[in-house]
């Protein structure tokens, strides 16, 4: 430790605080370093400052920035959970990083006199070291389980909170559980029966494309309640920052401009906002001269994109735009140059922006840059295409508009399928898509329609199911699926829907009685032909079914065995998880959309 301190002081002795600060380097350093650095410089100036995050952390519930209803929910859970006897209740808190999930829990627990015990994943000790000592080698999973059981049982000697209620907080898992979640589930099931102390899992929000560690069935099975926090609204962040400024006696309060810029740049991350603020203030104190190096200009131009450009006349648009860009770029770089987070939009909000494009007063410009919307995508770009396609018809009112729009989608798909020049065509395709859809809509009707998730993947799943059924009818059909589905199966089974019993055919749409008669006739015929079906299968059984033969690229036996093992397990699992994901999203959807919309409006106010 001492060595480390030396190292830090040595490196910072070189550059005197009054000298120009290399912003590039600062940007690269993680937040923790920033804090350390600040500590250092502050001690040197004999100013008493500690970690701002700790110092200005909220102490009472009213200081928390989270939404009131969610806090009430959390509070209610805490009250019930700590009183309850019997099965140990479990809570799952999700939310993006830096919204104050843990802080909220700590504050509320402190109010109710609950003692928090936090799980820390131990660092593995080297095997060589262990060999000498008489330690038991324990797997991380069993350590985790032991922790859960023991923390409720024993009271620490150092704590004086006797008779306090307890709560276990888990913010991270041992890595084993990400690979084998079932192990975790087993431990929790056991704990649910045996344990007494409530557990709270505080996890990051499940990002697009990846699933959370807990599947829905499991949450239901153990009666786990879930509270998910949203991003902190900008107003609340502003309030919190102002509170810190008033509490802070050492530094003079920054201008409202700077605060606003900080708020704008952190995108609902309160922790980051506090760090930025401290950074800004320390810089002010030192009176550093900020230089416009290449980095700050780049940063400025990035920020500038989100600004609304309103050129006064169309004729001068280019020059005006350029000059505006220059001036505003310079301005922002003068005032603010700390690094911000990349903005991430949830997919529904992005689709909303594409389908309900906002035009600035001058019709020639769109409020949101199409490329930027696309850039903010986290999921596979194809997903955006599907989402837009799934929903555009509900929004568009005019046939010509939708015709033009889908034409652009067709262009985009063609470009996206070009694999060889992918780096080049993919952005072009997405840009075509975004611009196409944003410009095609002529009638501006903003009626609230819920966006739905993509149908495409359920369609694919059902296609697979139908195919499997075809093969189960007669394994020979695998060689000629086209002929089988088009000629033979319609004869054997009558009616498109009866081929797959699970979904109804939209027969009410066909209104011509003639055809219905046909269908009935066909159905009768098919009924009579059912006996042929059995004989078809008989004929198929003439083909001997050989035991599964494994052909792998590698010829070793071990690989073959491995291959067979994988074969039995994997494909179904993947399918299940996919469907799981989809269903979850579609459930969450209307609420998510609503929340996003509100937040979106908030943001607009702030701009």
């Amino acid at each position: 430790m001492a060595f480390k301190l030396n190292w830090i002081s040595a490196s910072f002795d070189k550059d005197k605080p009054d000298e120009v600060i290399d912003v590039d380097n600062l940007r690269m350093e993680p937040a923790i370093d920033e804090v350390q650095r600040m500590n250092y410089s502050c001690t040197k100036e004999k100013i008493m400052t500690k970690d701002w995050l700790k110092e200005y952390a909220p102490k009472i519930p009213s200081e928390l920035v989270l939404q009131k209803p969610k806090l009430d929910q959390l509070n209610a859970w805490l009250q019930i959970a700590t009183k309850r006897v019997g099965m140990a209740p479990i809570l799952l808190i999700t939310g993006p990083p830096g919204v104050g999930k843990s802080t909220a829990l700590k504050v509320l627990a402190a109010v109710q006199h609950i003692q928090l015990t936090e799980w820390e994943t131990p660092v593995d000790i080297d095997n060589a070291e262990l060999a000498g000592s008489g330690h038991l080698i324990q797997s991380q999973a069993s350590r985790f389980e032991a922790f859960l059981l023991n923390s409720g049982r024993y009271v620490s000697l150092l704590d004086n909170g006797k008779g306090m209620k307890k709560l276990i907080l888990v913010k991270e898992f041992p890595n084993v559980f990400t690979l084998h979640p079932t192990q975790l589930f087993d431990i929790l099931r056991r704990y649910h029966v045996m344990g007494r102390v409530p557990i709270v899992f505080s996890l990051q929000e499940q990002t697009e494309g990846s699933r959370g560690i807990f599947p829905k069935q499991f949450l239901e099975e153990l009666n786990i309640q879930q509270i998910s926090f949203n991003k902190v609204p900008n107003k609340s962040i502003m309030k919190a920052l102002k509170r810190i400024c008033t509490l802070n006696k050492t530094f003079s309060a920054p201008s409202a401009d700077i605060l606003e810029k900080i708020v704008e740049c952190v995108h609902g991350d309160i922790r980051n906002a506090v760090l930025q603020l401290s950074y800004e203030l320390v810089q002010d104190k030192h009176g550093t001269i900020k230089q416009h190096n290449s980095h700050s200009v780049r940063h400025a131009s990035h920020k500038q994109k989100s600004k609304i450009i309103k050129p006064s006349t169309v004729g001068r648009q280019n020059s005006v735009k350029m000059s505006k860009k220059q001036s505003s770029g310079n301005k922002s770089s003068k005032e603010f140059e700390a690094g911000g987070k990349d903005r991430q939009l949830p997919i529904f909000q992005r689709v909303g922006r594409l389908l309900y494009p906002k035009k600035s007063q001058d019709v020639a410009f769109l409020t949101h840059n199409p490329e930027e919307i696309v850039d903010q995508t986290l999921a596979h770009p194809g997903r955006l295409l599907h989402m837009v396609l799934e929903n555009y018809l509900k929004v568009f009112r005019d046939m010509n508009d939708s015709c033009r729009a889908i034409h652009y989608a067709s262009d985009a798909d063609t470009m996206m399928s070009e694999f060889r020049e992918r780096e080049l065509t993919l952005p072009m395709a997405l840009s075509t898509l975004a611009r196409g859809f944003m410009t095609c809509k002529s009638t501006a009707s903003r009626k609230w329609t819920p966006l739905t998730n993509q149908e495409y993947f359920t369609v694919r799943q059902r296609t697979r199911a139908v195919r499997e059924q075809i093969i189960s009818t007669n394994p020979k059909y695998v060689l000629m699926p086209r002929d089988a589905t088009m000629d033979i199966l319609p004869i054997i089974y009558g009616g498109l829907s009866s081929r797959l019993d699970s979904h109804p055919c939209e027969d009410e749409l066909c209104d011509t009685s003639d055809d219905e008669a046909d269908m009935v006739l066909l159905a009768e015929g098919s009924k009579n032909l059912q006996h042929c079906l059995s004989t078809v299968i008989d004929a198929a059984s003439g083909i001997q079914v050989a035991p599964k033969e494994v052909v792998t690229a590698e010829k070793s036996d071990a690989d073959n065995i491995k291959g067979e093992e994988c074969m039995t397990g994997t494909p179904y699992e993947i399918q299940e998880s996919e469907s799981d994901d989809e269903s979850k999203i579609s459930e969450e959807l209307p609420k998510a959309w609503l929340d996003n919309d509100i937040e979106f409006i908030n943001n607009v106010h702030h701009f």
Partner: protein
Amino acid sequence: MSLWVDKYRPNSLTKLDYHKTQALHLKHLVQQGDFPHLLVYGPSGAGKKTRIFCLLRELYGPGVERLRLEHMNIQTPSNKKIDITTVSSNYHLEVNPSDVGFHDRVVIQELIKTVAQTHQLDPSGQREFKVVVICEADCLTKDAQHALRRTMEKYVATCRIILVAHTISRVIPAIRSRCLGVRVGAPTKDEIISILQSICRKEGLSLPNELAERIAMQSNGNLRRAVLFLETCKVQQYPFQPDQKVAAHDWEIFLKDTAKMIVQEQSPQKLLQIRNRLYELMIHGIPSEFIFKGLLQELVKNCDMQLKTQVVEKAAFFEHRIHLGSKPIIHLEAFVASFMASYKKFMEATVADLF
């Protein structure tokens, strides 16, 4: 008893009912003892597979009739396991690589390699090569086709490849030049009628000529379909009536209804319904090009000459797009949308002319 289609399938080249000179040529080709790679193409229901099977029987004797079903497990370079089902005898192997989507290249390479690396064990087997029949060769990806080209050259000593395709326009020229192309055209109406009559004779039924003609008309040159229709008719009603109804396939009816809906109303809401119906068709395994063709045939019936050219042009454009792109539904929808837009304009213009 099995379906008539399978029951009355000819099993030797001499017993084929039509394209007899071609059959004779194939017989001579095989009698020579060796033959080049073949590319058999033609519309569905024309008898491509039947001819291949006859050829194999001519080549190896009745041993090829003892088929067995095998599930192969192949590992891709990216360590993904893929399953593929093959039908094989001691002498040949049938496989449909396009079944596994874009992994078909691996199937081609690994499967043919395993087949080709093993020589015929049976010393009494007349031939020293095995035959691999690749079904739906026109559905293979370009990658797989290029892989096939190399494989064809490398293992020519131990293995012959017979490709089956509906159209050769989607088979790359490199493969077309390496194979002997055999075109199996659809049978004519008279040929179909005579085949239907002969089946009825063997079954001991009497088939009125009018009905046979109608079945032949409805089947549209697809012999398999014609025989299936005949059997359906028999199950529905026997003795046959000359004016008996020949039921069309359910998906064709469904497609026709969809076309009617398009003509009835042109609005984005309707388009949404149409899209769901198109999805329904695709789920049931109807290839997108058939959906396209069926839709177009129905839609142009409602157009005048000027509109027809527009619609067909659009159709050609988007049909091409289906092959370029990866998601057929988008292009189908785009076609329907553009038809709706131009039809609506056309209708509005005619209504305006009336007043």
